[in-house]
């Protein structure tokens, strides 16, 4: 059985996969030529039919999002690619851009043409110098090749593409915060409505899509919606990148149809690290409620993961074995959310401040069992009460860990401290792994 479907990653193993020559050698920019010969509405139709859903976490149907852009409104339209990839555990867009920035650029041109945008931006996180180089170079090469700028491929379509580099703020992955950041403001989320499709960048109709979403478009145009829709499950079509990390024999990227299970993926990755067993994992980054070994057979598509009580998110599968203290793991994530809270709204700003202190106490074995109820109640006052979804993400690891590992918290209290040896969970604890 071969469950993997390398499309985006199909020729990442070629040394020059990131260059124009490498990309073209493998069929790059052919979809663009095809797309520019199509009616823009037809492209939107095709993407709708393919069933492609946003790969940035929420899974919103991409074609439908494009369809929201008002047409014939005489206003500038914008396409903004979200390459901020900062959700803990998420590491798919970054290697994609390093290995093949052109597939994104081709997708950008097609998407811009479809939504009638003549200006597009890639907002990339700032902490990845070499990836910035690769994307910048690819953009320049695309300009030189007449694929960007005026009258692309002689088809009368103009497009300017600008790479915008972030500067260290997880919240800028949230699309409205991203837009404020791109406009030169503090990256804090905006009120919605108006939604970006109506008033996005510079208050103009704007599509914000994840890197992987846009990068998937050329293959859809090249091979047709049916081809794409033939992969995956009923409501979660196509292939996607799953990222395995943590206590696993061989961590890495796996491009597979939606609906694959963690059991299958772990098998391919050579199993949980030798001599250990799976304790907990995240299906889509730290913001998605954690799972345990009871969830190994949950189909990793939007519906399957939701039915099991979590979210597919970014398909960032972080694997932790039994040496890992769940309280420590959760505290560390909570510290992340505190650090990254934008500060705009009370529940998130003050709540994460409080949660860190509460979890530190618990990790140190201080407090009483009732404090766990208090912790849950604070989470309840944050989740769904805040301005954006960052705070929901902050509450998720706490709530889900208490759901599955309440005893471990109590154990800390009984023990007067953490019963785990942190050294045991390090990669260098296991001889021969590296």
């Amino acid at each position: 059985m071969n469950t993997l479907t390398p499309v985006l990653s199909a020729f990442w193993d070629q040394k020059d996969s990131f260059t124009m020559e490498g990309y073209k050698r493998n069929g790059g920019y052919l979809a663009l030529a095809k797309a520019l010969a199509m009616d823009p509405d037809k492209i939107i139709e095709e993407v709708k039919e393919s069933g492609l859903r946003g790969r940035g976490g929420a899974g919103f149907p991409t074609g439908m999002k494009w369809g929201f852009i008002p047409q014939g409104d005489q206003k500038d339209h914008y396409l903004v690619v979200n390459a901020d990839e900062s959700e803990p555990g998420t590491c798919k867009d970054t290697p994609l851009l390093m290995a093949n920035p052109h597939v994104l650029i081709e997708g950008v041109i097609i998407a811009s043409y479809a939504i009638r945008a003549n200006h597009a931006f890639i907002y990339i996180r700032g902490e990845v110098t070499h990836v910035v180089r690769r994307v910048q170079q690819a953009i320049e090469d695309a300009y030189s090749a007449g694929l960007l700028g005026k009258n692309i491929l002689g088809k009368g379509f103009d497009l300017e593409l600008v790479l915008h580099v972030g500067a260290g703020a997880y919240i800028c992955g949230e699309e409205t915060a991203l837009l404020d950041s791109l406009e030169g403001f503090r990256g804090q989320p905006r009120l919605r409505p108006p939604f970006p499709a109506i008033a996005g960048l510079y208050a103009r109709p704007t599509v914000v899509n994840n890197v992987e979403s846009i990068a998937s478009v050329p293959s859809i145009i090249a091979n047709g919606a049916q081809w794409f829709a033939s992969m995956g499950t009923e409501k979660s079509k196509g292939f996607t990148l799953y990222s395995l990390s943590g206590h696993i024999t061989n961590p890495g990227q796996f491009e597979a149809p939606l609906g694959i299970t963690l059991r299958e993926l772990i098998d391919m990755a050579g199993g949980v690290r030798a001599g250990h067993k799976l304790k907990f994992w995240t299906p889509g980054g730290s913001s998605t409620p954690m799972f345990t070994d009871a969830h190994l057979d949950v189909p990793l598509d939007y519906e399957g993961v939701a039915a099991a009580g979590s979210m597919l998110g970014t398909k960032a599968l972080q694997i932790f074995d039994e040496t890992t203290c769940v309280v420590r793991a959760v505290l560390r994530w909570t510290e992340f959310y505190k650090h990254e809270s934008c500060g705009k709204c009370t529940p998130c700003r003050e709540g994460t401040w409080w949660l860190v202190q509460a979890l530190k106490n618990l990790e140190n074995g201080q407090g009483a069992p009732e404090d766990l109820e208090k912790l849950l109640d604070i989470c309840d006052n944050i989740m769904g009460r805040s301005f954006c979804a960052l705070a929901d993400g902050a509450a998720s690891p706490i709530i889900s860990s208490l759901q599955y590992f309440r005893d471990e918290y109590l154990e800390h209290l009984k023990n007067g401290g953490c019963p785990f040896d942190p050294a045991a969970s390090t990669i260098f604890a296991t001889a021969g792994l590296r």
Partner: protein
Amino acid sequence: MSIQEIKNQEITSSQGADSAIEMITIIVDGFEVSVPKGTLVIRAAEKLGIQIPRFCDHPLLDPVGACRQCLVDIEINGRKFPKPQASCTIPVEPGMVVNTQLTSPVAEKAQKGVMELLLINHPLDCPVCDKGGECPLQNQAMSNGGGESRYEGVKRTFEKPINISSQVLLDRERCILCARCTRFSEQIAGDPFITLNERGALQQVGIYEKEPFQSYFSGNTVQICPVGALTGASYRFRARPFDLVSTPSACEHCASGCDMRVDVRRGKTLRRLAGDDSTVNEEWSCDKGRWAFKYEHRDRLTSPLIRNESGELVEASWPEALAHAAHGLSINRAAVLVGGRSTIEDAYGYSKFARIALNTNDIDFRSRTSSDEERNFLAALLLGKSVTYLDIDKADQVILLGFEPEEESPIIFLRIFKQVRKRGLKVSALAPFTSRGNEKLKATVIKNVGNEVEDISKFALTNRSVILVGERLAEVSGALTAALKLAEQSGAKLAWIPRRAGERGALEAGAIGNLLPGARQVADPKARQDIERAWGSGPLPTQTGLSTDQILDALHKGEIEALLVGGVDPGDISASAIDGLRKAFVVSLEIRNSAMSEVADVVLPVAAVVEKSGSFLDWQGRARKFEAAVTNSLHRSDVRILSILADEIGRPINLGTVEKAAKELASFGDGSSDQKSALASLSADQAKIKEPGKNQAILTSWRLLLDNGSLQEHEPNLAGTAHPCVAVISDDRANRLGVVDGDLIKISNSNGEIILPLQIGDIDPRAIWIPRNSENSRPLLALKSATHSLVSVVKA
């Protein structure tokens, strides 16, 4: 303009400004309420008397939904939002059902939860906090909070209060980051000098360290801060709210017409707050209006003074002083000068006193530079339609002539700025250079000093345009006439904006030589008869009275030998005014010792605004009545003293109370429709200014809002935020003189010199601009000219 502002504009304009108001009915806690489309849920609930707790929400600021205190449950046509929603950000929709904390346990818990979170890092220093007793956080914590905090952790600490300007202090520990202050500064004042800095739990309000919060409107942030994070230096630790008696009042400083609230403790004003008048100042005031009131306390005159034989002013009894004044005024030919900050009732007192007690029309309220053309212009203006703030709201463009709104009438500035931000209102100005205020208004500035009349005639306006004329336009001959013509030809609305609060009222009270009360022409026999009948007096003087300049001239020549003045600074009129006054018998009605006391023969102390009742007519011609905030003052209003003085002279004016004066003036109605003749005498020629030579420039100036004005004395904190006192010259001239920003230059003519640091600006290269009444820069005294004359400019 920030991008967010552009967004605003587009969203507003796409909503269609002129479409008829559509009403939407929703249900809140089981009750139906109908509100205009676009109304936010929090305000729809308010209409039913349901108070949803809130902090960041402010009806005049763009919604942000930051504090999350106002969460409620909402469903639309049976579809329930999965999470509670911030009612301050959600506009009503048909089919909406809202359940607030009163009917939804979810909303109630959400609000309690947010309150608890707001308090975990808030210090428990209410007993020493200025806001204690009037603090929204304290109040809502009491009524909606959870009682005991479950928080046992470490509170966030910051360095204790820091000065963010000489008048505002910031205590970051108390701040709940509602962003009202920062949004105000950006959205209302256009002064984004305070911002949210840092991120997350470390986010805090702050300034850029080298640039303090130098905004003319900073006091509003103190007023709207829902906690004690922002405090005013002058009120800090001075009082508790329950010690104070609050009285609605009117601002005496400028003609904007602000509604104010005065808080008094034991006969003394401790603070002033902006009142709420949506048709005028909305909920704002400028810092001068808020903080310049110490003049009420200092150097006050408590007893009448008489100049004795040896030429010294000595205390005297009231009967003695009144008798002396009456004698001096009745044996000489006398005239009257009225200060620009009289209430309309007081101005009416002077007007009637001049006509009846002194039998003269020689009266003028313009104790400043003025012209005959202006007098005719004002008479003609009263014939026109009235103009209001709402006209600015609806204008297709606004033209500023001889008028710098931010400096000379700051609330008009806020109003124009609001429209510029909301819908890109087009603003043009005739000015020597682009001031910061005009920069904020994105005004097209026509910089062509000396050519104003021609430039005015070139504007293309419609009947939706508004022309705002400042009192300084009178200094350019022909310009007022040109403005009037422009208005007539285009149908545009024309408003005259004097700088001081009392001038418009004084005009209507007839405290000017060509007009009688109710805008009746002195020259019109029928108008005179009206007034004679009403006053029950004999025939009134028929000759049009002298103007301020003519009166002073006559004093010099000895043609007038006595003068009654009420709150006038001779230095505001001209350098030589004081010399004329020295020659005459002067009776001065004053609240404090002043330059006028030096030349007065009789000084009669009168009440300050807080101590009396009355009203000011703002630039719109709209009256704001106020009662005495200090109720047990021994001081009396000018009009009451004038009435006694008239009795003493033996020609009673019968204005024993302010109310009587108000009623009598109101009974005249508007007599302006009877006559059109005023327009006829207007002339429209502009005197040519000689081209400046190599080291010469055309002098221009205006007064800064915060300057040496006598009502601002004893307010060092306020003075600390004054705009810098600099001379503005062009890049060209700076190069020629070999000087850079900050270097000193000397501005001089045969009368004297002024030395100031310079600032390079985009000024008409032939011109120079300096402040008109600031430290080291009082051109009217030093150079005997304030504008449109040639001066020499060299490196100092």
